[in-house]
């Protein structure tokens, strides 16, 4: 079972005031901490779990800068066998289709039975690279997968729908699956583990060497402008010391009739 997992490094945005950049095309990222996209963390874990059960290899792939190698090292430390980074320069030149084409170009030359991506990435929230890859590669697919069983060269997948409902399917391999959070419990990665994994292969490929024509990569979906959320009336904030806040809290609950 050879599995390729596409991963992305994303900024952590909780408890920070995001600042829109001068061009109004993105946010300032200098001050932000970055992590492996949560969904991709589950995807890597799932690939490793399947490898442990069925044998084979796990390859982690990302399109990005040298800084983005951090998430590949993490993937290697979790148990991926090798990693590939495609150096593509300024990533804001590409839309999701462009990124999916770059990934496909590289994945095509790798042995694979399964390709995983996360359902979406926590930064731009498009959630389309995975399924675009499936179509570009012309392979079978399942979305928002929360369970995978391999049986007789097929994958029995559970796809999450809405409202607690799921859909179970049997699909032929090779296939692309987008992985949903909660599918497994991603293993803990120590600093030491990351250091040890430095011995594993991390290959860097240059976009220019992939032979992808420019017009295939030129974006068709374009961010015109990003901005902070429009003002809403918002919540009435309870202020004062904790004791005062607690009294107001109890007063509200009493008024709403839930303090019997």
């Amino acid at each position, binding site marked *: 079972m050879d599995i390729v997992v596409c991963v992305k490094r994303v900024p952590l945005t909780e408890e920070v005031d995001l600042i829109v950049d001068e061009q109004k095309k993105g946010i300032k990222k200098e001050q932000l901490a970055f992590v492996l996209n949560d969904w991709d963390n589950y995807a890597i874990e799932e690939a490793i779990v399947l490898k442990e059960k069925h044998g084979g290899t796990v390859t982690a792939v990302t399109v990005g800068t040298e800084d983005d190698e951090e998430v590949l090292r993490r993937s290697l430390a979790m148990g991926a066998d090798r990693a590939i980074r495609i150096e593509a320069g300024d990533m804001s030149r590409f839309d999701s289709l462009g990124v999916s084409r770059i990934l496909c170009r590289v994945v095509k030359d790798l042995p694979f039975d399964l390709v995983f991506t996360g359902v979406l990435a*926590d930064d731009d929230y498009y959630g389309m690279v995975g399924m675009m890859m499936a179509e570009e590669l012309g392979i079978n697919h399942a979305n928002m997968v929360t369970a995978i069983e391999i049986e007789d060269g097929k994958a029995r997948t559970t796809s999450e729908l809405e*409202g607690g409902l799921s859909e179970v399917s049997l699909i032929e391999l090779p296939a692309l699956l987008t992985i949903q959070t909660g599918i497994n419990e991603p293993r803990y990665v120590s600093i030491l583990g990351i250091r040890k994994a430095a011995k594993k292969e991390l290959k860097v490929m240059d976009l220019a060497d992939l032979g992808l024509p420019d017009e295939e990569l030129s*974006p*068709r979906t374009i961010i015109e402008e990003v901005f902070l959320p429009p003002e809403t009336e*918002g*919540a009435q904030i309870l202020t004062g010391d904790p004791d005062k806040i607690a009294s107001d809290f109890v007063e509200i609950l009493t008024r709403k*009739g839930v303090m019997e």
Partner: protein
Amino acid sequence: MGEVFVIVEHRLGEIRDITLEMLWKAGELGQGLSYKVTAVIIGHEVKSIAETISDRADKIIILDDERLKNFNADISKEIIAGLIEESRPTLTLIGNTSWGMELAPCLAVRAGLPLATDCIDIMIKDDKPTAQRQMYGGKIFSNVSFTPSAGYLLTIRSGVFPKDKIGDRQAQIVQKDLPPKDIPMRKDFIEFAETAAGDVDITQAELLISVGRGVGEEGNIPLIRELAEALNGLLSCSRPIVDKNWLPKYLQVGTSGKSVTPKVYIAVGISGAFQHLAGITGAGTVIAINKDPKAPIFRTADYGIIEDLFKIVPVLKEKVLEAKKG
């Protein structure tokens, strides 16, 4: 005259709310721009679904076939690509649902059309759409446009547009057959599976105290549980808590969990992602406790407490117990 395609989502014989919401938006765009609204229904025995929306579209294209009984993204993609080629609609709207998120990107590649997903609004100028979206967990908004194209694909977030009827339309029904070209079935539908029910039902609760990822670790959950117990309310949670197996799935609030309707909903350490908020639109009063003043939950909550939960929750609990005694 332009045309807007709305891809009808239905499941187990019932039309999904997202379809009505997309029809509302298509209808609204149609009024201003005299676009024709065309609903596309793919499935088996879908007559009653067509009837429910016959006054919301100008045209309903129906593909009814035994082989279309279960949703299959590949087959839908082929069918819709064919219909798009035939009619060249300016816009094609698809729900940003589990099924829609599988279908739309495949269709975009197959039909060679640009796509923006998870849109919360659509503006049109000179037959070219601009879509509004959110990024970074709702902390940033963006306007997205497209290079000129024969048509544009947009997936629409659930719950952002009304389900109401807009304008007066009378649909002409057009039945189509499955394209003769054999579409390979490489995916077999096996069954639907439902989340196991638990010993409590949060959908019936009058008061919910909901815990989110801000609680940090499993060992801190009792802190929130104690507040729930002091208040005689039920404990519920956001998705990451279930993903980590700290609480069972039947306590999860949101799109992929339960929709709840308590008189009061207290969100502790929950950021307010739209998938979570979608589960509490029926809640009476929402009180949010979060240490990040920019957390999106404060935009929609009625009351907010900007504090570290570890500091404030014990104080709240004591005050509640005091009040209940006295």
